[in-house]
């Protein structure tokens, strides 16, 4: 149960792109073809290891419908990472990315790591959005990109873990103020003194590191 860091994530994107399935695949390692519509926000958690350190991920799965947009906005501020998901078999979900990104950037803290995810990569025959298009969008907006399948579990671990790595690196660079819980990062109970000292040291270089994004 002890962890070095705790990161808060949110998963956003249009309804039906597979957000809930991604979370379920990541936390329970299973795929549920018929999934309830998420009402509001659901929660899941899992421990991962990065750089030999235990990291606890707390993930809030949001509802994509327009009606819940304003509720989703309340979660941006306190999240360290966001998975922005579209469905490679439905172009309109790709087209809506700009709106999602604007919303996220407007309401989150500027350091939030955003991972762009093109989900349902198992449905190659029904693909409407080329992988290159996803890559281009990610490059243009400074996001990390990955195609996943919540069904076959392809890249699902990687998506969550790479996001965590990115956050972890930012912590090392001193970009994140880890003593401010509003950033979606907590130092674990076991490492609180060691982590605190490190944070203090890194904090000094924070201004320089901040320039990277």
């Amino acid at each position, binding site marked *: 149960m002890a962890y070095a860091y705790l990161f*808060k994530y949110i998963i956003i994107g249009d309804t039906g792109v597979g957000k809930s399935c991604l979370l379920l695949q990541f936390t329970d390692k299973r795929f549920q073809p018929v999934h309830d519509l998420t*009402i509001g*926000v659901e929660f899941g958690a899992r421990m991962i290891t990065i750089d030999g350190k235990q990291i606890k991920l*707390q993930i*809030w799965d949001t509802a994509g419908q327009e009606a819940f947009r*304003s509720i989703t906005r*309340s979660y941006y501020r*306190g999240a360290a990472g966001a998975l922005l998901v579209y469905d490679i078999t439905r172009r309109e979900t790709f087209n809506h990315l700009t709106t999602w990104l604007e919303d996220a950037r407007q309401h989150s803290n500027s350091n939030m790591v955003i991972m762009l995810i093109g989900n349902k990569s198992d449905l190659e025959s029904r693909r409407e959005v080329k992988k290159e298009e996803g890559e281009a969008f990610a490059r243009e907006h400074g996001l990390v990109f990955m195609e996943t399948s919540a069904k076959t579990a392809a890249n699902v671990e990687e998506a969550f873990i790479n996001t965590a790595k990115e956050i972890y690196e930012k912590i090392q660079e001193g970009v994140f103020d880890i003593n401010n*819980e509003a950033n979606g990062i907590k130092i674990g109970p076991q490492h609180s003194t060691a982590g605190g000292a490190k944070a203090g040291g890194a904090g000094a270089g924070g201004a320089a590191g901040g320039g990277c994004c």
Partner: protein
Amino acid sequence: MDFFKSGLKTVLGAPEPGQLPSGAETVERLVDRVNNSTLLEDRRDACRALKAMSRKYRVEVGAQGIDTLKQVLELDRADNETINYALDTLNNIMSPSQFEEEEDNPHVPMNIGEQFTEMFIKDPHNIQLLLDLLDEYDFRVRLSAVQLLTSLLTNRTKDIQEIILVKPMGVSKMMDLLGDTREVIRNETLLLLIKLTKGNANIQKIVAFENAFDRLFEIVSSEGYSDGGIIVEDCLLLMLNLLKNNSSNINFFKEGSYIQKMLPMFNTPEDLEDIGWSPQKVSNVHCMLQIVRTLVSPSNSAQIISSCQKIMKNVGFLDALCNILMASGVPADILTETINTVGEVVRGDITNQDFIGNVMAPSNPPRPAIVVLLMSMVNEKQPFPLRCAVLYCFQCYLYHNELSQTSLVQTLLPSSTDVSSLTSGRLLCGGLFSADVLSNWFSAVALMHALVDNLGQKEQLLRVLLATNVGSTPVSLLHQCTLLLQQTTKLQSKVALLMLLCHWMSHCSAAVSAFLQVPGGIGYLVNQTCSNEHDENEYLLQGLSAFLLAICIHFNDDSVESYTKDALKQLLVKRIGVETFTAKLSEVSKHELYNKAAKHPQLRVKIPAEILIDYEFCRLFKVLEGVLINSISEKQEPDPSEDRQSPAADNLEQYKSLIRQQDARLQELMQQLDGLMQQNYALQSALNDSIASNSLLKDENTLLKAQVSAKLPSQSNQTNQSSQATPGQQTQASQATNPDRILEYENKLQFLNSEVTRLTAELKASEEAKKIFEEDLVKLKQGQDDLKKDQDDLLELLADQDMKINEYKMRLVSLGQTVEETQADTELNLT
């Protein structure tokens, strides 16, 4: 009056001697001043005065001042003092409670605060104004803003929750205040958050996301856990709100290791017995127990329950709860709630059930805790809620656990060696046949739970023998229960025994055949089922008897010759009739207490009289009712002497007609549904219309009331001053003219209405006449046309004949005849 008169001198100047300005006038002048004065100090003083008046004259201040005060919040943000007065004034206006100052004022409606709240939130921007003020660090402003939001939420919880939810930082801002180092603000924020989170899952999730549990546990621990003051209780109430029916937050709570953090709440100091429990500690622990129960509530998903139960066991939570059970000096209601909680923490979890099965009570001689609890259950002198809690806990201990079910039955079997010691089984048997009706009920139901879905124990229990009298041969437990059922006159005992027998005999033909061998058993059930008494409880008894009778038929293995399946079925058909039987059976689920019991595994009753039906019995009934009805109404084995021609075709016909019937019924129902849906739609829109107009009228009403109460005194004051001859005449007059006018208008309206009706009628009549005319016209035209045609035909004919005549004439001439010219004919021809 003196109070604010002196307070207002600075603002209004001293009133002229002998002249008292009315409250409404004063309010009007103050509002004017806030609106129009360019000097900040002036506005501030006026706001202060308004605040002073807002308790006694809340209608006037509210009706005239809301908009102005709102403007102050917008425009005078720079001056904290003014803002503070405005906020306090608004808070007084909206206050959900009545002020002492207005107690004897009949003009103030009870829900005036709510009405003003409604008006205030018409513009959602007003809430944003208040949220913005939360950013203000000034102590008074922040505090007043928090308090005002709390009042608003109290008055209009749902509306304001929805408004705040769509403000991106709304909830977050309030959460930030929990970290305010000024305790007063922190504490007021707690109250605000309790109101804010009530029953709104989305807000609850955001509050949890914003680290509420961390903050709350920090506060709870800094205040000394259960020994802390009311702040601890407030924190726990907020946690409870966040978790209740919110699986997402429960998951978060569990994953965030917060269960462990609750543990110190249950630390029982060594010397607790001496210092005793303060009322606040009782409240705190009670809240804590509620939180625990929310996590493992049977209404949660199985996955959540099971993982919470495991954590609670692993971190020593269950031990801590058992310690409370065993400690002395624990107040009765805490004990009761702890027993309920222990029950839910172990329910369905074999490890935990096993754990409490092995807990020993520090009694002399040492006894299993379960036995000690059951002793309380069958003890008339124990408080009723405690006895109910023990039953629930015991049921949870047996739930889905063949082992604990088996070990209970084991204690009753002859092989059980230790005859002297008190066991669960012996306690329950004692309770079953005791003179205390509640003990009968609790014991029968407890025993029944040892048999749920456990065929093995149903059969084992048949082996239990009771020594009734010294010297007489022992009888079986089932036999004794059946005899008692026939003898007892107490409703609760009867129902309990029937429920026990139903569970025992369902799916267990050995138990059925044992029952059939008890003299009088079947006869009793038939008589009960046929009984014709009319009262809710009698119906229930009849239904339960029918149910047990049907169990005797359905699970019958024909091992008792006189009561084979067919024989019993014949008996039922002849003596009762299938239809009557079905009707009686359906009475069970119509009983009010059946429906109450079916809702939740825990018996939720307040008084002993409400004890009647058990949750597990309802489950059995739901599953078997349909099966038994089918089984009874199955066609009798055809008599072999009769001609058995094509039974299959017969069946087929039957099914076909059944299907046809059902089809017709379905159609009928669909039509009804359509009709109802349309009706519903119409009603809905009518309702919406009237809601809308109602809210309009309400607003108008509030304003009018305010104006009336504001104007009445001021006008009479004026008349008093100008000419003392007719005090209050003016108002009377104006009041009198109103009804007159209205009467006049009404008359006019009536006249106009009737005029319209008359004209409409006339119009209709003339239109009809016109139609007839037109029809006639068409007919006439047709007639004319016909005539013309006839004429043409005739003319043609004449011309024809003329020609012929001429021809003949020619012939005659050629034949040498003389022909007379018939002039007349020719002329006629030409006309």
